[in-house]
């Protein structure tokens, strides 16, 4: 091996050793355990996976998670793109961007208090509805709990996506728009024919990153509603937490390997969209 290659490895090595000890080797152990019985480590093949896939809690959590992702991500993408497209050539764009980004910095724990006061049965939101002449709802203990989670997610992630969209928008040359204007294109046509195609690569990356960020919404849900929230917001993350507390290590192992496989596939697609050239 050349000396230069050796130097490169030496730079990476401390980090790689840590990653192996704390993540990689234990995760390989988890893969092994996913084929074993929890108590006496007997080989059971794919039995644990079958147990997980037929587990009603897993099916509920999986369904909720898919529903959550399926609603949140399109909503977030459309909302953040509209705002970014609007702010892009706007004098007040900078300050507004800061405002939208700020929720990213607010610790979840600090917001819990507001969520409680806002969504309580006799809280602020119901007060508002009441004074407008509508009947309130017990937000946290009905199907609306799910929507509170959606709003929390949008609120925290909007700024992040706006920043990404604005970066994507500013990479489209202004001269293209000018040329189109000269040829008589309206602003909607410009958006359709220039902006949209120019943003396609960004769209893909943003979708995958939004998906991965959506796992973090569990924090809000957990801190507001605890281990067993209303069943509409019972997500995979709650399930893993409860399995962990019950020490259902075999189910956890199979569940973790399944989720890791899904994310692995997503990352491979993401890498392809980046062009895959890392050297």
């Amino acid at each position, binding site marked *: 091996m050349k000396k*230069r*290659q050796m130097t*490169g*490895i030496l*730079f*990476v090595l*401390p*980090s790689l050793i*840590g*990653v192996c000890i*704390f*993540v990689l080797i*234990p*995760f390989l*152990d988890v893969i092994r355990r996913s084929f074993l019985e929890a108590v006496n480590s007997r080989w059971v093949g794919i039995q644990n996976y079958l147990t997980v896939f037929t587990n009603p809690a897993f099916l509920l959590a999986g369904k909720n998670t898919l529903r959550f992702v399926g609603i949140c991500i399109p909503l977030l993408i459309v909302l953040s793109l509209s*705002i970014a497209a609007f*702010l892009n050539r706007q004098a*007040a764009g900078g300050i*507004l961007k800061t*405002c*939208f980004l*700020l*929720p990213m*910095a*607010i*610790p*979840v*724990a*600090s917001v819990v*208090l507001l969520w*409680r*006061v806002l969504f*309580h049965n*006799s*809280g*602020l939101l119901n*007060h508002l509805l009441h004074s407008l002449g509508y009947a309130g709802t017990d937000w946290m203990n009905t199907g609306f709990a799910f929507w509170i989670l959606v709003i929390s997610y949008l609120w925290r992630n*909007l*700024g992040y996506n706006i920043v990404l969209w604005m*970066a994507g928008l500013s990479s489209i040359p202004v001269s293209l728009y000018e040329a189109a204007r000269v040829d008589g294109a309206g602003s909607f046509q410009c958006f359709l024919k220039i902006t949209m195609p120019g943003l396609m690569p*960004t769209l893909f*990356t943003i979708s995958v*990153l939004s998906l991965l960020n959506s*796992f973090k919404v*569990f924090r809000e849900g957990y801190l507001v509603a605890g281990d067993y929230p209303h069943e509409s917001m019972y997500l995979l993350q709650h399930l*893993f*937490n409860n399995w*962990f507390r019950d020490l259902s*290590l075999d189910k*956890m192992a199979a569940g*973790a390997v399944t*989720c*890791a496989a899904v*994310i*692995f596939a997503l*990352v491979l697609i*993401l*890498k392809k969209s980046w062009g895959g050239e*890392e*050297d």
Partner: protein
Amino acid sequence: MKKILPLLFCFLLAGIACYPILFLLTGSLMADTELSSLLGPVLKGSKGYASFRLLPMMPTLKHYAGLLLDSPEFFVMFWNSVKLTAGILAGQVLVGIPAAWGFAKYRFPLKKAVFTLYILLMMMPFQVTMLSNYLVLDRLHLLNTHAGIILPAAFSTFPVFIMYRFFCGVPGSILEAAQIDGAGPLQIFLHIGLPLGSAGVVSAVVLSFLEYWNLIEQPLTFLQDKRLWPLSLYLPNISLDRAGIAFTASVTALFPAVLIFLSGQDYLEQGIIASAIKE
């Protein structure tokens, strides 16, 4: 004229996004009597609906004094948060910078595969690695210690990825010139790479700070001893009849994060863009 309406809408949305900060500040400056008359229905179950004011009627710093003088447990938690965050950031910088440099500027066998592994690991949500994390901490007798939280996070691959993106932008010609002048790999790294990639380091630190100041899942899972808990877990456990203290503690937890956000916003945006868009 056509642009006024969307602009107003954006300002309204931005106002909503930032309102939680005002809500917490206002609450923390209200006297107990004002808080309980406004939030009574939520806090104590009295009749009617909770309401709130934009600003306190009679601002008082009493709760801040109370928090500083009469809440020894608050100091312990705040100190725990500082210790965890500082430890994690120090580890990430120390191990992560050389690794990012190695990935960005050297070629060695299996580099592509190892780097893909790093990307994969940075995308894994906590719940997927929870079990493997537990197994290794158990083996190393690090459960229920701060080191058990700090060490795995210090080897997080996310900051490596961010800094890698910035180091890739350091032009190779400068490095070659330095090499011809007789500089060794370590000199080149310390005197050329580090200064030119410093924006990446700051971006990674800002993003990590916001993430780890907000730490919920790891301490909740791995720290049984509540005296070791960080602020982010203490806040939701303040009972609502101590609303004044809950507000004040929330503001105190919020303060460092907002400070870092405002002073490092440019770096934060650069970091967000680096996390998604390949130049």
